[in-house]
């Protein structure tokens, strides 16, 4: 059996794990246009900050490919999937045959058209090479303008602040981190990040760029020595679309992670997922989701039958030492507690916990996450204990025995 995986990040590694659970001998080839041993994309900000060494960027040990019987083909780009001939074609013309193919191509930075941007040197912040390019240019006291106050823009801001840069963040939205926070939490995080020297200009966007200046639509001009565009990301869907596979905003798969093409699977940031917390199909560009989708796909590629269910949006992230954990949907009845340094929002719908945001005190948040994923009915749950903090005490004895005692009736 020949397994071919396009991509070399979390979804690809999950696929290898899934395949090897059931097939210890089939050939696995990983093809990636990046030259690196599998590394952690989310760690690029930690590396830029100086908290993680290049060696510790490795997502799996150095002997991972060897131990798992994987042939890595690195630094070479796949340009075409031929589903009739069942092969992928590389840019140098090499054809690699597959029996089962995984498309784990991730996403790419989205750079919207902006006046004058084509004449300006700018960075995106997505992969190790982009982080290295920034690192090679950043200097103490440098003025950095970041377009985009989402997860990527603000992780870049934190890392560059540690390099001594003076940072201004501009976003069209009137609040920061809209993908994971509500208004109130956004304001709280904004104040906190501002207290670490980052300046925000919100509710406006760039009218025009000249070499070292951005003129904003609100009339303000911002000078910069370095420009970073972190507006968003877009799934890499072209290979599957060009091969005739079904693609929407991302690659469409069924619950087994199979695409509409025979023997072609997809996982991770390039796909559309079913969000069980909001009952909608959406892009869930999250590392845990990527790995687990890959794992399910791998098992299925090896001839088993698994389904990937219970995917929800979820995030754990911190800025300047203040932690945020959030999950699920924020559409429902709210319970909110706020202190100077903490924020807790629980969202209920149909007698279930469907979402939450925790800032500051994030301890044991996974208990809440599991309640969302497992759609636990609150009939057997002590609501006061639930609101107080995540704790196993809120459940009835039967669930505790099952979860903690390893005893099921």
């Amino acid at each position: 059996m020949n397994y071919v995986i396009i991509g070399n990040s979390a979804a690809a590694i999950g696929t290898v794990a899934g395949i090897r659970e059931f097939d210890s001998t089939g050939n696995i080839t990983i093809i990636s246009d990046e030259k690196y041993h599998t590394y952690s994309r989310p760690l690029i900000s930690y590396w830029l900050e100086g908290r993680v060494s290049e060696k510790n960027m490795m997502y799996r040990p150095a002997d991972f490919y060897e131990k798992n019987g994987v042939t890595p083909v690195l630094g070479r780009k796949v340009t075409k999937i031929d589903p009739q001939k069942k092969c992928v074609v590389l840019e140098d013309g090499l054809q690699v045959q597959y029996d089962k193919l995984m498309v784990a191509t991730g996403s790419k930075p989205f750079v919207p058209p902006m006046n004058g941007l084509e004449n300006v040197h700018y960075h995106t912040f997505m992969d190790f090479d982009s982080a290295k390019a920034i690192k090679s240019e950043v200097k103490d006291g440098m003025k950095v303008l970041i377009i985009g106050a989402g997860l990527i823009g603000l992780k870049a801001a934190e890392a560059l602040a540690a390099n001594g840069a003076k940072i201004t963040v501009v976003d069209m939205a009137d609040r920061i981190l809209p993908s994971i926070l509500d208004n109130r939490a956004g304001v709280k995080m904004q104040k906190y990040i501002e207290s670490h020297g980052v300046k925000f200009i919100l509710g406006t966007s760039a009218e025009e760029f000249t070499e070292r200046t951005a003129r904003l639509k609100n009339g303000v001009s911002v000078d910069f020595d370095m420009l970073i565009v972190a507006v968003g990301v877009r799934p890499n869907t072209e290979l599957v679309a060009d091969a005739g596979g079904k693609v929407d905003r991302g690659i469409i798969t069924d619950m087994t992670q199979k695409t509409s093409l025979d023997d072609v699977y997809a996982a991770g940031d390039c796909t559309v997922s079913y969000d069980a917390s909001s009952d909608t199909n959406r892009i869930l560009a999250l590392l845990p989701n990527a790995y687990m989708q890959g794992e399910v796909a791998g098992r299925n590629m090896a001839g088993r039958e698994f389904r990937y269910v219970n995917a929800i949006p979820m995030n754990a992230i911190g800025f300047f030492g203040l932690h945020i954990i959030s999950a699920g949907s924020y559409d429902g009845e709210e319970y909110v507690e706020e202190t100077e340094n903490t924020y807790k929002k629980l969202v209920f719908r149909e007698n279930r916990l469907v979402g939450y945001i925790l800032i500051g005190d994030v301890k044991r948040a996974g208990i809440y996450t599991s309640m969302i994923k497992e759609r636990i009915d609150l009939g057997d749950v002590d609501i006061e204990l639930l609101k107080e903090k995540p704790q196993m005490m809120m459940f009835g004895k039967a669930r505790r025995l099952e979860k903690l005692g390893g005893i099921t009736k």
Partner: protein
Amino acid sequence: MKKVYVNEDWCLACHLCEFYCAAANSGADSMIKAFRDGKKPVPRIQVEEGSEVNFAVQCRHCDEHPCVKGCIAGALSVSDEGVVSCDENKCVGCGTCILSCPYGCIVPDEEAHVIRKCDLCVKNHNGAPACVEGCPNNAIVFEER
């Protein structure tokens, strides 16, 4: 695989397991040295106290191990025997495992910017779960189920 289980009818909520755990994983060879000079090593076991029952909670070393699958740094791994452990040199303390653990068993160490978790004392000098040895009421056991 042998795991640590708690009997909630027997737990006295004395919290001794937390101290034995913290000391065993502190690198010090005694309880006194572990807590000397105001040091506060973080326990990987936590006692929940209720109005009727109490119990200790620590890593279930579960088959699903969503912490390992979700770890952004590749710091968490599961051994061939099934023990889930953390390479604290690789951990960046992002908290994705805290977000993922359905039992709330992964503990942040705010000072060290890493997480701490139970590895059944396989890596420390104790060699066997210190919480079990230290429990005065046999409320925590180490056994196959």
